[in-house]
Protein backbone atom coordinates (compact mmCIF):
# COMPACT_ATOMS: atom_id res chain seq x y z
CA UNK A 1 0.00 0.00 0.00
CA UNK A 2 2.74 2.42 1.01
CA UNK A 3 5.10 1.08 -1.63
CA UNK A 4 5.64 4.59 -3.04
CA UNK A 5 7.58 5.29 0.15
CA UNK A 6 9.93 2.40 -0.42
CA UNK A 7 11.56 4.02 -3.42
CA UNK A 8 13.38 6.22 -0.91
CA UNK A 9 12.90 9.38 -2.95
CA UNK A 10 10.63 11.04 -0.37
CA UNK A 11 12.05 12.12 2.96
CA UNK A 12 8.76 12.34 4.86
CA UNK A 13 10.35 12.39 8.31
CA UNK A 14 12.83 15.03 7.18
CA UNK A 15 9.99 17.21 5.89
CA UNK A 16 8.09 16.88 9.16
CA UNK A 17 11.28 17.66 11.03
CA UNK A 18 11.41 21.01 9.19
CA UNK A 19 7.77 21.54 10.20
CA UNK A 20 8.69 20.86 13.83
CA UNK A 21 11.58 23.30 13.63
CA UNK A 22 9.42 25.99 12.03
CA UNK A 23 6.86 25.45 14.79
CA UNK A 24 9.43 25.48 17.57
CA UNK A 25 11.20 28.71 16.65
CA UNK A 26 7.98 30.49 15.67
CA UNK A 27 6.27 29.45 18.92
CA UNK A 28 9.07 30.82 21.07
CA UNK A 29 9.27 34.00 19.01
CA UNK A 30 5.49 34.53 19.06
CA UNK A 31 5.38 34.01 22.80
CA UNK A 32 8.04 36.64 23.38
CA UNK A 33 6.82 39.18 20.82
CA UNK A 34 3.19 38.55 21.83
CA UNK A 35 4.04 39.22 25.48
CA UNK A 36 5.80 42.45 24.53
CA UNK A 37 2.76 43.48 22.46
CA UNK A 38 0.42 42.70 25.37
CA UNK A 39 2.61 44.75 27.71
CA UNK A 40 2.43 47.62 25.20
CA UNK A 41 -1.34 47.37 25.00
CA UNK A 42 -1.74 47.74 28.77
CA UNK A 43 1.10 50.21 29.27
CA UNK A 44 0.42 53.70 30.60
CA UNK A 45 2.32 55.23 27.65
CA UNK A 46 -0.21 56.26 24.96
CA UNK A 47 2.28 55.88 22.09
CA UNK A 48 2.98 52.25 23.03
CA UNK A 49 -0.70 51.50 23.45
CA UNK A 50 -1.43 52.94 20.02
CA UNK A 51 1.41 51.01 18.39
CA UNK A 52 0.27 47.76 20.02
CA UNK A 53 -3.33 48.25 18.99
CA UNK A 54 -2.57 49.22 15.40
CA UNK A 55 -0.05 46.40 14.98
CA UNK A 56 -2.45 43.77 16.29
CA UNK A 57 -5.34 44.93 14.15
CA UNK A 58 -3.36 45.26 10.95
CA UNK A 59 -1.35 42.05 11.19
CA UNK A 60 -4.11 39.88 12.65
CA UNK A 61 -6.39 40.77 9.78
CA UNK A 62 -3.84 40.19 7.04
CA UNK A 63 -3.80 36.67 5.54
CA UNK A 64 -0.70 34.73 6.56
CA UNK A 65 0.03 33.90 2.93
CA UNK A 66 0.22 37.62 2.15
CA UNK A 67 2.64 38.15 5.03
CA UNK A 68 4.83 35.24 3.98
CA UNK A 69 4.84 36.39 0.36
CA UNK A 70 5.62 39.95 1.43
CA UNK A 71 8.57 38.69 3.46
CA UNK A 72 9.89 36.70 0.52
CA UNK A 73 9.18 39.11 -2.34
CA UNK A 74 9.47 42.35 -0.37
CA UNK A 75 12.09 41.83 2.29
CA UNK A 76 14.29 39.37 0.46
CA UNK A 77 13.95 39.82 -3.27
CA UNK A 78 13.37 43.57 -3.29
CA UNK A 79 15.24 44.83 -0.25
CA UNK A 80 17.77 42.02 -0.05
CA UNK A 81 17.15 41.33 3.62
CA UNK A 82 18.07 37.71 4.27
CA UNK A 83 18.30 37.48 8.08
CA UNK A 84 21.37 35.35 7.57
CA UNK A 85 24.88 35.59 6.19
CA UNK A 86 24.48 32.59 3.96
CA UNK A 87 23.05 32.72 0.46
CA UNK A 88 21.42 29.30 0.81
CA UNK A 89 17.82 29.73 -0.33
CA UNK A 90 16.73 27.01 2.03
CA UNK A 91 18.08 28.90 5.06
CA UNK A 92 16.81 32.27 3.85
CA UNK A 93 13.33 30.88 3.19
CA UNK A 94 13.24 29.17 6.57
CA UNK A 95 14.18 32.32 8.46
CA UNK A 96 11.76 34.52 6.54
CA UNK A 97 9.01 31.97 7.20
CA UNK A 98 9.79 31.98 10.93
CA UNK A 99 9.76 35.79 10.94
CA UNK A 100 6.37 35.86 9.21
CA UNK A 101 4.89 33.21 11.50
CA UNK A 102 6.10 35.13 14.56
CA UNK A 103 4.77 38.45 13.28
CA UNK A 104 1.37 36.88 12.63
CA UNK A 105 0.88 34.57 15.62
CA UNK A 106 2.20 37.07 18.15
CA UNK A 107 -1.03 39.02 17.62
CA UNK A 108 -3.06 36.02 18.78
CA UNK A 109 -0.74 35.42 21.73
CA UNK A 110 -1.09 39.11 22.62
CA UNK A 111 -4.87 39.00 22.57
CA UNK A 112 -5.07 35.74 24.53
CA UNK A 113 -2.72 37.18 27.10
CA UNK A 114 -4.67 40.40 27.30
CA UNK A 115 -7.82 38.49 28.11
CA UNK A 116 -5.75 36.69 30.76
CA UNK A 117 -4.70 40.02 32.22
CA UNK A 118 -8.38 40.87 32.54
CA UNK A 119 -8.90 37.81 34.74
CA UNK A 120 -6.40 39.10 37.30
CA UNK A 121 -8.31 41.14 39.90
CA UNK A 122 -7.44 44.84 40.00
CA UNK A 123 -6.57 44.45 43.67
CA UNK A 124 -3.54 42.30 42.80
CA UNK A 125 -1.93 45.14 40.87
CA UNK A 126 -3.00 47.69 43.48
CA UNK A 127 -1.41 45.67 46.26
CA UNK A 128 1.76 45.39 44.20
CA UNK A 129 1.83 49.12 43.50
CA UNK A 130 1.17 49.84 47.16
CA UNK A 131 4.32 47.88 48.03
CA UNK A 132 6.33 50.23 45.83
CA UNK A 133 6.82 48.00 42.79
CA UNK A 134 7.12 49.91 39.50
CA UNK A 135 5.03 49.28 36.39
CA UNK A 136 7.29 46.67 34.83
CA UNK A 137 7.68 44.83 38.13
CA UNK A 138 3.93 44.81 38.72
CA UNK A 139 3.46 43.41 35.23
CA UNK A 140 6.27 40.85 35.24
CA UNK A 141 6.03 39.65 38.86
CA UNK A 142 2.33 39.81 39.63
CA UNK A 143 0.04 40.33 36.65
CA UNK A 144 1.62 38.36 33.78
CA UNK A 145 2.42 35.21 35.79
CA UNK A 146 -1.23 35.01 36.81
CA UNK A 147 -2.43 35.96 33.31
CA UNK A 148 -0.34 33.21 31.69
CA UNK A 149 -1.78 30.61 34.03
CA UNK A 150 -5.26 31.66 33.01
CA UNK A 151 -4.63 31.40 29.26
CA UNK A 152 -2.77 28.11 28.83
CA UNK A 153 -5.73 26.63 26.94
CA UNK A 154 -6.15 29.50 24.45
CA UNK A 155 -2.36 29.56 24.00
CA UNK A 156 -2.53 25.85 23.19
CA UNK A 157 -5.05 26.76 20.48
CA UNK A 158 -2.62 29.30 19.06
CA UNK A 159 0.18 26.75 19.14
CA UNK A 160 -1.91 24.16 17.32
CA UNK A 161 -2.98 26.71 14.72
CA UNK A 162 0.65 27.76 14.38
CA UNK A 163 1.78 24.17 13.79
CA UNK A 164 -0.68 23.80 10.95
CA UNK A 165 -0.04 27.29 9.58
CA UNK A 166 3.62 26.42 9.03
CA UNK A 167 2.35 24.78 5.83
CA UNK A 168 2.05 28.27 4.35
CA UNK A 169 5.86 28.32 4.24
CA UNK A 170 5.52 25.96 1.27
CA UNK A 171 4.47 29.04 -0.70
CA UNK A 172 8.02 30.37 -0.53
CA UNK A 173 9.64 26.99 -1.06
CA UNK A 174 10.56 25.93 2.46
CA UNK A 175 10.93 22.16 2.33
CA UNK A 176 8.46 21.31 5.06
CA UNK A 177 5.64 18.77 5.06
CA UNK A 178 3.17 20.60 2.82
CA UNK A 179 5.74 21.17 0.08
CA UNK A 180 6.57 17.49 0.06
CA UNK A 181 2.88 16.65 -0.01
CA UNK A 182 2.36 18.84 -3.06
CA UNK A 183 5.25 17.13 -4.77
CA UNK A 184 3.95 13.66 -3.89
CA UNK A 185 0.44 14.45 -5.05
CA UNK A 186 1.88 15.35 -8.44
CA UNK A 187 4.07 12.31 -8.77
CA UNK A 188 1.96 9.74 -6.96
CA UNK A 189 -1.40 10.78 -8.35
CA UNK A 190 -2.78 7.27 -8.02
CA UNK A 191 -2.38 7.45 -4.23
CA UNK A 192 -3.81 10.88 -3.50
CA UNK A 193 -6.02 9.77 -0.65
CA UNK A 194 -3.20 7.85 0.94
CA UNK A 195 -0.77 10.75 0.63
CA UNK A 196 -3.29 13.19 2.06
CA UNK A 197 -4.16 10.85 4.91
CA UNK A 198 -0.52 10.35 5.70
CA UNK A 199 0.17 14.07 6.01
CA UNK A 200 -3.03 14.65 7.94
CA UNK A 201 -1.98 11.91 10.34
CA UNK A 202 1.45 13.49 10.67
CA UNK A 203 -0.07 16.76 11.81
CA UNK A 204 -2.39 15.00 14.24
CA UNK A 205 0.64 13.28 15.73
CA UNK A 206 2.21 16.69 16.26
CA UNK A 207 -0.79 18.60 17.55
CA UNK A 208 -2.81 16.07 19.55
CA UNK A 209 -0.16 15.57 22.26
CA UNK A 210 0.42 19.34 22.36
CA UNK A 211 -3.23 19.95 23.12
CA UNK A 212 -3.45 17.18 25.70
CA UNK A 213 -0.24 18.13 27.45
CA UNK A 214 -1.18 21.78 27.65
CA UNK A 215 -4.68 20.87 28.85
CA UNK A 216 -3.05 19.05 31.73
CA UNK A 217 -0.65 21.93 32.36
CA UNK A 218 -3.56 24.36 32.38
CA UNK A 219 -5.16 22.48 35.29
CA UNK A 220 -1.88 22.16 37.14
CA UNK A 221 -0.95 25.84 37.08
CA UNK A 222 -4.43 27.33 37.56
CA UNK A 223 -4.40 30.04 40.24
CA UNK A 224 -6.78 29.31 43.09
CA UNK A 225 -8.59 32.35 44.42
Amino acid at each position, binding site marked *: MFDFLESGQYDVLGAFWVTVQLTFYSAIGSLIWGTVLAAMRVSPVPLMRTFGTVYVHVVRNTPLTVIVMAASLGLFQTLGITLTGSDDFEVIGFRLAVLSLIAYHATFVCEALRSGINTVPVGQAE*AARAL*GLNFSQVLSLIVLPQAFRAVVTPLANVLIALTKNTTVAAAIGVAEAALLMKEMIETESDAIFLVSAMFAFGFVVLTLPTGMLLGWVSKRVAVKR
Partner: protein
Amino acid sequence: MTPMSNVSVTKDAAPAAEDLVVLKNVDKHFGALHVLQDINLTIGRGEVVVVIGPSGSGKSTLCRTINRLETIDSGTITIDGKPLPAEGKELARLRADVGMVFQSFNLFAHKTVLENVMLGQIKVRGVDKKAAEEKARSLLDRVGVATQADKYPAQLSGGQQQRVAIARALAMDPKVMLFDEPTSALDPEMINEVLEVMQQLAQNGMTMVVVTHEMGFARSAANRVVFMADGRIVEEATPDQFFSNPRSDRAKDFLSKILHH
Protein backbone atom coordinates in the same frame (compact mmCIF):
# COMPACT_ATOMS: atom_id res chain seq x y z
CA MET B 1 -26.09 65.68 47.23
CA THR B 2 -26.89 67.93 50.14
CA PRO B 3 -25.00 71.19 50.16
CA MET B 4 -23.10 71.33 53.41
CA SER B 5 -20.80 74.22 52.72
CA ASN B 6 -21.90 76.08 55.80
CA VAL B 7 -21.23 73.29 58.22
CA SER B 8 -17.97 74.01 59.95
CA VAL B 9 -15.75 71.16 61.06
CA THR B 10 -15.63 70.74 64.80
CA LYS B 11 -12.14 70.00 66.00
CA ASP B 12 -11.66 68.82 69.53
CA ALA B 13 -8.52 66.76 69.27
CA ALA B 14 -5.29 68.51 68.43
CA PRO B 15 -2.90 66.55 66.21
CA ALA B 16 0.30 65.28 67.79
CA ALA B 17 3.41 67.40 67.75
CA GLU B 18 5.04 66.10 64.56
CA ASP B 19 2.94 66.00 61.39
CA LEU B 20 3.47 62.92 59.24
CA VAL B 21 0.61 63.04 56.74
CA VAL B 22 -0.93 66.36 55.78
CA LEU B 23 -3.87 66.76 53.42
CA LYS B 24 -4.67 70.31 52.38
CA ASN B 25 -7.75 71.42 50.47
CA VAL B 26 -8.04 68.07 48.74
CA ASP B 27 -10.78 67.77 46.14
CA LYS B 28 -11.74 64.86 43.96
CA HIS B 29 -14.57 64.05 41.58
CA PHE B 30 -15.75 60.74 40.19
CA GLY B 31 -17.51 62.13 37.16
CA ALA B 32 -20.31 64.29 38.50
CA LEU B 33 -19.87 62.98 42.04
CA HIS B 34 -17.82 65.30 44.24
CA VAL B 35 -16.38 62.50 46.34
CA LEU B 36 -13.86 64.52 48.36
CA GLN B 37 -14.69 68.12 49.15
CA ASP B 38 -12.03 70.40 50.54
CA ILE B 39 -10.47 67.81 52.84
CA ASN B 40 -8.03 69.11 55.43
CA LEU B 41 -6.53 66.48 57.67
CA THR B 42 -3.29 66.20 59.58
CA ILE B 43 -2.01 62.97 61.02
CA GLY B 44 0.78 63.13 63.55
CA ARG B 45 3.56 60.61 63.96
CA GLY B 46 2.43 57.72 66.12
CA GLU B 47 -1.18 58.77 65.93
CA VAL B 48 -4.04 56.37 65.24
CA VAL B 49 -6.81 58.06 63.29
CA VAL B 50 -10.01 56.17 62.66
CA VAL B 51 -12.18 57.37 59.79
CA ILE B 52 -15.83 56.47 60.04
CA GLY B 53 -18.96 57.47 58.19
CA PRO B 54 -21.81 56.14 56.11
CA SER B 55 -21.27 54.26 52.84
CA GLY B 56 -20.34 56.52 49.98
CA SER B 57 -19.06 59.24 52.28
CA GLY B 58 -15.63 59.13 50.63
CA LYS B 59 -13.70 57.57 53.49
CA SER B 60 -12.17 54.75 51.43
CA THR B 61 -11.30 57.18 48.66
CA LEU B 62 -9.64 59.44 51.22
CA CYS B 63 -7.56 56.52 52.45
CA ARG B 64 -6.54 55.57 48.91
CA THR B 65 -5.47 59.09 47.96
CA ILE B 66 -2.79 59.01 50.64
CA ASN B 67 -0.64 56.61 48.59
CA ARG B 68 -2.10 57.84 45.33
CA LEU B 69 -4.00 54.72 44.38
CA GLU B 70 -6.56 57.43 43.69
CA THR B 71 -5.41 60.68 42.14
CA ILE B 72 -6.76 63.99 43.37
CA ASP B 73 -8.10 66.91 41.34
CA SER B 74 -6.68 69.68 43.48
CA GLY B 75 -5.08 70.32 46.83
CA THR B 76 -1.88 68.89 48.26
CA ILE B 77 -0.88 65.81 50.19
CA THR B 78 2.48 65.64 51.92
CA ILE B 79 4.00 62.68 53.69
CA ASP B 80 6.84 63.29 56.11
CA GLY B 81 7.28 66.76 54.66
CA LYS B 82 7.49 65.62 51.03
CA PRO B 83 4.66 66.28 48.59
CA LEU B 84 3.18 63.17 46.98
CA PRO B 85 4.96 62.63 43.63
CA ALA B 86 2.74 62.31 40.56
CA GLU B 87 4.22 59.08 39.20
CA GLY B 88 7.36 57.13 38.40
CA LYS B 89 10.21 56.12 40.67
CA GLU B 90 9.55 58.79 43.26
CA LEU B 91 5.99 57.64 43.73
CA ALA B 92 7.04 53.98 43.99
CA ARG B 93 9.61 54.92 46.63
CA LEU B 94 7.00 56.79 48.60
CA ARG B 95 4.50 53.96 48.38
CA ALA B 96 7.09 51.61 49.84
CA ASP B 97 7.01 53.79 52.96
CA VAL B 98 3.22 53.69 53.20
CA GLY B 99 1.77 50.33 54.15
CA MET B 100 -1.66 49.48 52.83
CA VAL B 101 -4.14 46.85 53.94
CA PHE B 102 -7.16 46.26 51.71
CA GLN B 103 -10.69 45.12 52.39
CA SER B 104 -10.23 42.14 50.05
CA PHE B 105 -6.72 41.26 51.35
CA ASN B 106 -5.23 41.17 47.83
CA LEU B 107 -2.53 38.66 48.67
CA PHE B 108 -0.65 37.61 45.55
CA ALA B 109 -2.61 34.49 44.59
CA HIS B 110 0.23 32.73 42.78
CA LYS B 111 2.75 33.10 45.59
CA THR B 112 2.97 31.40 48.95
CA VAL B 113 2.33 33.29 52.16
CA LEU B 114 6.06 33.50 52.82
CA GLU B 115 6.79 34.74 49.28
CA ASN B 116 4.07 37.37 49.68
CA VAL B 117 5.86 38.82 52.69
CA MET B 118 9.32 38.52 51.10
CA LEU B 119 8.55 40.01 47.69
CA GLY B 120 8.55 43.71 48.55
CA GLN B 121 11.65 43.45 50.69
CA ILE B 122 13.62 41.78 47.89
CA LYS B 123 12.31 43.67 44.85
CA VAL B 124 11.83 47.12 46.33
CA ARG B 125 14.20 47.31 49.29
CA GLY B 126 16.91 45.16 47.74
CA VAL B 127 17.20 43.00 50.85
CA ASP B 128 18.92 39.66 50.24
CA LYS B 129 16.80 36.55 50.20
CA LYS B 130 17.94 35.08 53.48
CA ALA B 131 17.39 38.24 55.49
CA ALA B 132 14.02 38.75 53.81
CA GLU B 133 12.91 35.26 54.72
CA GLU B 134 14.03 35.69 58.31
CA LYS B 135 12.11 38.92 58.65
CA ALA B 136 9.07 37.46 56.89
CA ARG B 137 8.98 34.50 59.25
CA SER B 138 9.28 36.66 62.33
CA LEU B 139 6.50 38.94 61.09
CA LEU B 140 4.27 35.98 60.29
CA ASP B 141 4.96 34.73 63.79
CA ARG B 142 4.04 38.12 65.19
CA VAL B 143 0.65 38.09 63.47
CA GLY B 144 0.11 34.46 64.44
CA VAL B 145 0.25 32.67 61.08
CA ALA B 146 3.79 31.30 61.15
CA THR B 147 2.56 27.75 60.59
CA GLN B 148 0.88 28.76 57.30
CA ALA B 149 4.05 30.14 55.69
CA ASP B 150 4.25 27.64 52.85
CA LYS B 151 0.57 27.62 51.93
CA TYR B 152 -1.08 29.62 49.17
CA PRO B 153 -3.45 32.46 50.12
CA ALA B 154 -6.55 30.58 48.92
CA GLN B 155 -5.84 27.85 51.49
CA LEU B 156 -6.14 30.31 54.38
CA SER B 157 -9.18 31.70 56.15
CA GLY B 158 -10.07 35.35 55.61
CA GLY B 159 -8.75 36.33 59.01
CA GLN B 160 -5.46 34.58 58.37
CA GLN B 161 -5.16 36.17 54.92
CA GLN B 162 -5.72 39.62 56.35
CA ARG B 163 -3.07 39.06 59.01
CA VAL B 164 -0.64 37.97 56.29
CA ALA B 165 -1.53 41.14 54.40
CA ILE B 166 -0.65 43.16 57.50
CA ALA B 167 2.66 41.29 57.78
CA ARG B 168 3.33 41.96 54.10
CA ALA B 169 2.84 45.69 54.63
CA LEU B 170 4.93 45.71 57.83
CA ALA B 171 7.81 44.00 56.04
CA MET B 172 8.52 47.29 54.27
CA ASP B 173 8.99 49.13 57.60
CA PRO B 174 6.36 51.68 56.65
CA LYS B 175 6.15 55.11 58.24
CA VAL B 176 2.39 54.94 58.20
CA MET B 177 -0.13 52.15 57.70
CA LEU B 178 -3.41 52.64 55.85
CA PHE B 179 -6.25 50.24 56.57
CA ASP B 180 -9.12 50.36 54.10
CA GLU B 181 -12.00 48.58 55.85
CA PRO B 182 -9.75 45.70 56.89
CA THR B 183 -12.48 43.66 58.56
CA SER B 184 -15.44 44.34 56.29
CA ALA B 185 -14.97 41.19 54.19
CA LEU B 186 -14.48 38.90 57.19
CA ASP B 187 -16.78 36.46 58.92
CA PRO B 188 -17.72 37.86 62.33
CA GLU B 189 -15.69 35.25 64.20
CA MET B 190 -12.52 36.31 62.39
CA ILE B 191 -12.81 40.02 62.94
CA ASN B 192 -11.26 39.97 66.38
CA GLU B 193 -8.09 38.17 65.41
CA VAL B 194 -7.38 40.94 62.89
CA LEU B 195 -8.37 43.74 65.25
CA GLU B 196 -6.07 42.31 67.93
CA VAL B 197 -3.11 42.53 65.58
CA MET B 198 -4.08 46.12 64.79
CA GLN B 199 -4.43 46.95 68.50
CA GLN B 200 -0.93 45.63 69.06
CA LEU B 201 0.40 47.78 66.24
CA ALA B 202 -1.30 50.84 67.65
CA GLN B 203 0.16 50.17 71.10
CA ASN B 204 3.63 49.83 69.57
CA GLY B 205 3.34 53.36 68.23
CA MET B 206 2.62 52.74 64.55
CA THR B 207 1.03 55.67 62.76
CA MET B 208 -2.27 54.38 61.44
CA VAL B 209 -5.17 55.60 59.34
CA VAL B 210 -8.02 53.15 59.72
CA VAL B 211 -11.23 53.26 57.72
CA THR B 212 -13.60 50.98 59.56
CA HIS B 213 -17.08 50.23 60.81
CA GLU B 214 -15.70 48.69 64.00
CA MET B 215 -16.77 51.19 66.62
CA GLY B 216 -15.21 49.07 69.37
CA PHE B 217 -11.82 49.43 67.74
CA ALA B 218 -12.35 53.16 67.29
CA ARG B 219 -13.17 53.55 70.97
CA SER B 220 -10.26 51.53 72.28
CA ALA B 221 -7.40 52.17 69.87
CA ALA B 222 -7.97 55.55 68.20
CA ASN B 223 -6.40 58.81 69.28
CA ARG B 224 -8.84 60.60 67.08
CA VAL B 225 -12.02 59.85 65.21
CA VAL B 226 -12.71 61.55 61.90
CA PHE B 227 -16.33 61.45 60.84
CA MET B 228 -17.04 61.85 57.13
CA ALA B 229 -20.31 62.34 55.29
CA ASP B 230 -20.99 63.27 51.67
CA GLY B 231 -17.34 63.79 50.85
CA ARG B 232 -16.58 66.11 53.74
CA ILE B 233 -14.97 65.78 57.12
CA VAL B 234 -17.86 66.75 59.35
CA GLU B 235 -16.35 66.14 62.74
CA GLU B 236 -13.00 65.37 64.33
CA ALA B 237 -12.83 64.44 67.99
CA THR B 238 -11.36 62.07 70.53
CA PRO B 239 -13.28 58.78 70.58
CA ASP B 240 -14.77 59.56 74.01
CA GLN B 241 -16.05 62.93 72.90
CA PHE B 242 -17.28 61.67 69.57
CA PHE B 243 -19.20 58.66 70.82
CA SER B 244 -20.64 60.22 73.97
CA ASN B 245 -21.20 63.72 72.74
CA PRO B 246 -21.19 64.14 68.96
CA ARG B 247 -21.51 67.77 67.88
CA SER B 248 -22.96 67.58 64.40
CA ASP B 249 -26.46 66.40 63.58
CA ARG B 250 -25.07 64.19 60.84
CA ALA B 251 -22.87 62.33 63.33
CA LYS B 252 -25.69 62.08 65.86
CA ASP B 253 -27.92 60.60 63.21
CA PHE B 254 -25.22 58.16 62.09
CA LEU B 255 -24.44 57.02 65.62
CA SER B 256 -28.09 56.59 66.51
CA LYS B 257 -28.39 54.17 63.63
CA ILE B 258 -25.39 52.02 64.42
CA LEU B 259 -25.24 52.05 68.22
CA HIS B 260 -27.76 51.00 70.92
CA HIS B 261 -28.78 47.70 69.44
